[in-house]
Each structure stands twice: as structure tokens, then as C-alpha cells.
């Protein structure tokens, strides 16, 4: 199973910005423990959802050539809980991008109201340059992340030109 914390892209503008949504359902296992009798979507998973939205934005901008690794959480301010039945939306903007890294800033929304900000830095990791023993294939954008974007395109979204809603 892939650790997927966004359900779908709702907008994607290549190299500029992306929006994705996550619908929180009571059937998700972790909500039984977080917290028993009081299910709350963990704020840490909001950061992960933003990281996936922004990470795909960064990866797509360079044709998914590199592995894109979350390197630093520059800022994370989350001002409200989200509960089963809520929809969380992640709006990510690509602030800068080069061969070393991508920098994004983002806003978090719950049912249409802004509830936070998450700014991130992603490193580009090339297998040939890395001192780490990484697999030869692109282990970040191997399947389900890319298919999320393909689903968006299949639903009529475009990754170039104007900011498209779904």
C-alpha cells in the first residue's frame, strides 16, 4: 500500500501551483486510535498531505527525472482540527526551483475556510550523485503518485496554461 494522503488533484498548473483534496472518512483505521471516541485527523498528516501535493508539483516541473525528498518543514501553522466528514484542501505554490531543490509555500483549507500554512523544501536526489545506497529506479514517483496526476488529466484537467478546476 502506498502512503497516500491526498484523494485527488483539483487543479494543477505545471511549475506554478497545485491543489489537491482529501476527504476524511470515519472508516479510516487510524481514527479509531486518534483519538478513541474523538476522531481527529492528525495535523501531522495535513503536513504529509501538503508534502505530497507540493512534492508532485516539484517533481512534475522537472519531468519526474529526480527523486524529490521532503528535506525541511520551513513553517507549519495549523489552526483548526479536521474531523470525519470534512474536506481538507492543499494549495501549494512553487516559489523556486533549481537542480538542487524546490521551495514551496502552501495554504491549508477545511470546507472552504483557511486553517493553516505549510511551507516546505524538497531536495532533488539523483541516484548517481547520492552517497546513499538508493535503488536505481525513481522510488518516489514510481506509480500511485504519478497516477494521481494522470487521473486528474483523465478527468479533463490540464497541467499547462491556466489554473484549471475540476
Amino acid at each position, binding site marked *: 500500500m502506498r502512503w497516500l494522503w491526498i484523494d485527488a488533484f483539483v487543479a494543477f498548473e505545471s511549475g506554478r501551483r497545485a491543489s489537491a483534496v482529501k476527504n476524511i472518512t470515519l472508516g479510516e483505521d487510524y481514527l479509531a486510535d486518534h483519538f478513541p471516541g474523538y476522531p481527529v485527523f492528525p495535523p501531522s498528516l495535513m503536513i504529509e498531505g501538503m508534502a505530497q501535493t507540493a512534492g508532485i508539483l516539484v517533481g512534475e516541473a522537472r519531468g519526474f527525472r529526480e527523486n524529490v525528498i521532503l528535506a525541511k518543514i520551513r513553517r507549519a501553522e495549523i489552526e483548526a482540527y479536521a474531523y470525519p466528514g470534512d474536506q481538507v484542501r492543499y494549495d501549494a505554490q512553487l516559489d*523556486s526551483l533549481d537542480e538542487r531543490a524546490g521551495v514551496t509555500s502552501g495554504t491549508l483549507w477545511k470546507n472552504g475556510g483557511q486553517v493553516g500554512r505549510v511551507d516546505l*523544501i524538497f531536495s532533488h536526489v539523483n541516484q548517481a550523485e547520492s552517497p546513499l545506497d538508493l535503488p536505481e529506479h525513481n522510488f518516489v514517483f514510481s506509480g500511485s503518485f504519478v497516477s494521481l496526476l494522470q487521473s486528474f488529466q483523465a478527468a479533463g484537467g490540464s497541467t499547462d496554461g491556466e489554473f484549471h478546476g475540476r
Partner: protein
Amino acid sequence: MAPSHDAVFLKVREVLSDALGVEQEDVSPDATLQGDLGAESIDFLDIVFRLEKAFAIKIPKGELFPDEILNNPAYVDGDRMTTAGLETLKAAMPHADFADFEKAPFVAKVPDLFTVRTIVNYVEGKLQAAAA
């Protein structure tokens, strides 16, 4: 015209405070980024991006933090930098103060070269070159 030394310092102080999550008063000219301000490796990349934005400059890879020299085993002999390594590093980092380091160029002391003043000197050099 390039901004004054004080103006550059104040902006660098703000950048480092934001990037490293430290109080601005702790960002003194002699403070070392790693030892005094707690910078980790990824923070250097964050600092580069923030400086580029704050001063509208472009910082090529390895110019402010020449990690390719620092990570080159050919420039290390035991726990010290070789003479060639030291000269290469000095040439690559005219913005750093080597007075103490070159007396005993221990590899473990390399992080002490990266002080707040080193960053200010580097930015001033970039801005002066751009204004010339």
C-alpha cells in the same frame, strides 16, 4: 548603489533568524552557523534560497558553501586539511576569515569558518559586483 554594511547585516540577521528558528539577538557577527546557531546541512540550502530572495541575487551551487571542496578526500590528510586543500578553500571563500583556521587547519574546525560575518561578507561582495 549597493546597500550599507549595516543594512546587509540586518537583513542577513533576519534571514538566519527565520531559517534557523533562533532569536535575532543571537545572530551576532561572530556566531557560527552550526556551533552557535544550530544549523544542520539542509539549513544551508534553505539559507541560500532565502538569501537569493531577500537580496535578489543568484547564488551558484558551491559558491557560498563550497561543499565539493570540503567533501573532497584529496584535500584531507588525517584530521587536517592539506596545504593544497587550504589554498583551494581560501581561493573559493574570499568572504571567510581564515586567520585562526589556517594556524591549525583541523577538518573538525571547518564549520567555524561559516559565521554570520562570512555570510554578510559574501552578500556584500555579490551586491557590490552587481552594482559595479
